[in-house]
């Protein structure tokens, strides 16, 4: 393999985008959870919700910062590494990203300041509103990114004039059916991520026998929400499969591990695809099921990879395995959420530790599922940058040197590893320290020039005897 500027740019983009997506998928879920907590606190007045809110806000603070700064990198990489793509598809992708930065980025960044520092300066209603604005901002952000990415997956509403992609129908671009299955898929994935992280935290505290009140709320709300959302996600995921089948047949064949046209088609459950021989080495498959899943019929003809010229095929192994890992995580999450919820509903005692351990250990599942989902979608799109319209090889910056990308890749890798390690450590410390008694809200007169009011607050006390700190 030749380490060209193209390949290095692809590695760099894959690396930076994979790093980035961990954080929004977490913060979108947590922002919604914070909004729920703040609303519950306003309605019920129970202090446990306030304590949970303050606790999760700190975690949100650390992860939100990481999401923002890693997102800025992506906004620049379009022009830096993919200047041909920016130039020729800029009239379409540019405005979509402009909408993202205006409706989402600006909104969440501004109101996040209020969330962190403004509790004593605004009324409870305005504070709740600010929480909602942050949650709304994260959702808008996901929406526009999914519109943009969906256009790259299934381009519509454009004409090519002098090599430039000119938008002809914005409605078709934004209301593309592809957007409206992919955006919900991403959004539900984010909510599931939030739900499992919250439930896992609750389970962890229960296992250690601390923060009983908070742990109970977290475990219940997390598992119940996940139990409701998982079937929705499986259904939406199936709809995603339909769009891939109809619009990206080569990607579909790669995901299915299907090398040759079949009628009726069987479904490959697990295999080791081999590109050199264009066959699967070890294979476990079920006859007819392939046709049923793809076309809802028992005898449909399904396309294999060899129907496409070799230069038009995506690499097979990554989408093939990534897809199976994603689905596997989904099924595990469903089993856990359903069994756990039933168990909680009937208040059983035996087997409790087993459930708690399983829930505690489940927190990586949604992250793995989201990442592998992205790998499936993005690697499966290759060798196209804009599916069927612009090759990745024609999208890269023509003047980019191998040295320049190597340098940038190393710098990004070092910086990301450093901030990710420390970020994880600090989140872990916050989780370990647990929720503390909320500080009283001191009304401040913003006009009064005083320097140390906030600094004199009584030291926060832990809610439970024997807790760490």
């Amino acid at each position, binding site marked *: 393999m030749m380490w060209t500027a193209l390949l290095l740019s692809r590695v760099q983009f894959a690396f930076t985008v994979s790093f980035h997506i961990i954080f929004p998928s977490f913060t979108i879920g947590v922002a919604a959870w914070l909004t729920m907590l703040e609303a519950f606190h306003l309605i019920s007045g129970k202090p446990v919700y306030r304590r949970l809110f303050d606790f999760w806000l700190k975690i949100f603070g650390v992860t939100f910062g990481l999401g923002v700064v890693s997102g800025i*990198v992506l906004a620049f990489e379009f022009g*830096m590494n993919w200047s041909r793509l920016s130039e020729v598809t800029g*009239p379409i992708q540019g405005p979509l990203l*402009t909408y993202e930065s205006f409706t989402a980025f*600006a909104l969440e960044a501004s109101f996040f300041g209020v969330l962190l*520092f403004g509790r004593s300066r605004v009324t409870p209603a305005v504070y709740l509103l600010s929480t909602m604005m942050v949650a709304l901002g994260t959702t808008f952000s996901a929406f526009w990114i999914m519109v943009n990415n969906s256009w790259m997956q299934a381009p519509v509403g454009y004409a090519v004039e002098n090599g430039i992609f000119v938008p002809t129908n914005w409605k078709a671009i934004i209301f593309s059916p592809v957007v409206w299955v992919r955006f919900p898929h991403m959004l539900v994935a984010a909510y599931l991520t939030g739900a499992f992280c919250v439930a896992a935290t609750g389970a962890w505290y229960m296992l250690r026998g601390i923060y009983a009140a908070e742990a109970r709320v977290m475990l219940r709300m997390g598992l119940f929400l996940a139990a409701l959302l998982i079937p929705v996600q499986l259904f939406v995921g199936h709809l995603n499969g339909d769009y891939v089948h109809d619009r990206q047949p080569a990607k579909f064949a790669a995901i299915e591990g299907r090398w040759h046209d079949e009628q009726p088609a069987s479904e490959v459950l697990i295999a080791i695809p081999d590109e050199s021989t264009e066959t699967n080495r070890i294979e476990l498959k079920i006859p007819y099921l392939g046709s049923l899943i793809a076309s809802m019929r028992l005898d449909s003809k399904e396309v294999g990879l060899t129907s496409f010229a070799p230069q038009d095929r995506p690499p097979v192994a990554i989408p093939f395995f990534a897809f199976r890992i994603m689905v596997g995580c989904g099924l595990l999450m469903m089993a856990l959420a359903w069994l756990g919820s039933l168990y909680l509903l009937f208040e059983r005692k035996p087997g409790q530790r087993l459930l708690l351990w399983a829930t505690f250990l489940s927190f990586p599942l949604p992250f793995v599922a989201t990442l592998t989902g992205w790998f499936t979608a993005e690697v499966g799109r290759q060798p196209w940058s804009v599916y069927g319209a612009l090759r990745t090889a024609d999208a890269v910056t023509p003047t980019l040197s191998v040295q320049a990308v190597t340098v940038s890749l190393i710098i990004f890798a070092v910086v990301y590893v450093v901030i990710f390690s*420390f970020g994880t450590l600090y989140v872990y410390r916050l989780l370990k320290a647990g929720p503390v008694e909320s500080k009283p809200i001191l009304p401040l007169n913003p006009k009064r020039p*005083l320097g140390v*009011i906030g600094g004199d607050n009584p030291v926060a006390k832990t809610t439970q005897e024997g807790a760490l700190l």
Partner: protein
Amino acid sequence: MILFWAGLLAVTTSLYVLLDGFDLGVGILFAFADEPNRRKMLSAISPVWDGNETWLVLTGTILFGAFPAAYAALLSTFYLALVLMLCALILRGVAFEFRYKARGFRWFWDLGFAGGSLVATFVQGMTIGALVEGLPMENGHYVGGALGWLSPFAVLCGVGLVLGYSLLGAGWLVRKCEDPIRAFAYRMLPILTVGVLVFLACAFVASLVMHLELMQRWLERPYLLVFPLVGAVATWGLLRSVKQRDDFGPFRFSALIFMAAFGTLAVSFWPFMIPFVLTVEQAASPPSSLAFMFWGAGLFVMPLTLIYTTMVYRLFRGKVVEVHYD
């Protein structure tokens, strides 16, 4: 429509320069302070820095959406510089949260914060300098090599912007902080003002010596001198407000100096987006893109963004109360 977006781009760019300018400046001055003054300096920008930095993203995406050719050309030209700036902004951005969570590593995040602010500012100044000097382009791509734009003049402009942002930062500190930070900032203000003036003089002489094409435009259109004139008046006002210890004056006047400098650059570039290579007209997106952006983002979201930015600034007005951290 092209004019509208070029105008809006100018607005978001200048808002970025003013807003992130002062918090980057505070970041540079942060190096000279000690705990607990560092905490107070951070408190002066903590609630708003995130929103400020957003204007960089807004500027970037407007450039992408409305002028994709310029976006592609500029970002690919300054590839390594931007990598450096992004990493500086990353380290600086996470330092806000991380320094309070760190036990033994606070020095690292403090270094990241001050160093990140310095590097990001320096890189921004260098790119402006390289643009003023002019870039060799063929078919919309820079042909000068990965570091070809790196020249003494670009470095000079990098230093100039460091001084300039520090000036804005000092102005912000006297407005938001009390003694001893306020006193420190008042000591720095005259020094920084003189520094900026010396830089401007050097840049002017250098432009004359190098026969920059840009200077030609000034000789052709002497009425443009109104911008430097505004700058000169603002400098006088700045020094006066420092003398009178008027806490609100320094930031306002240094912002005015920046606006004058920005206006100077903008009119000397016009109608070029990348001087003498790519005009605003040539870089613009097709009308269907510009209209789509106008009817939503331009007409509704932009004013809304300005409104809530103002609201957030009003909310956190007055001298800082130290932010409490666990």
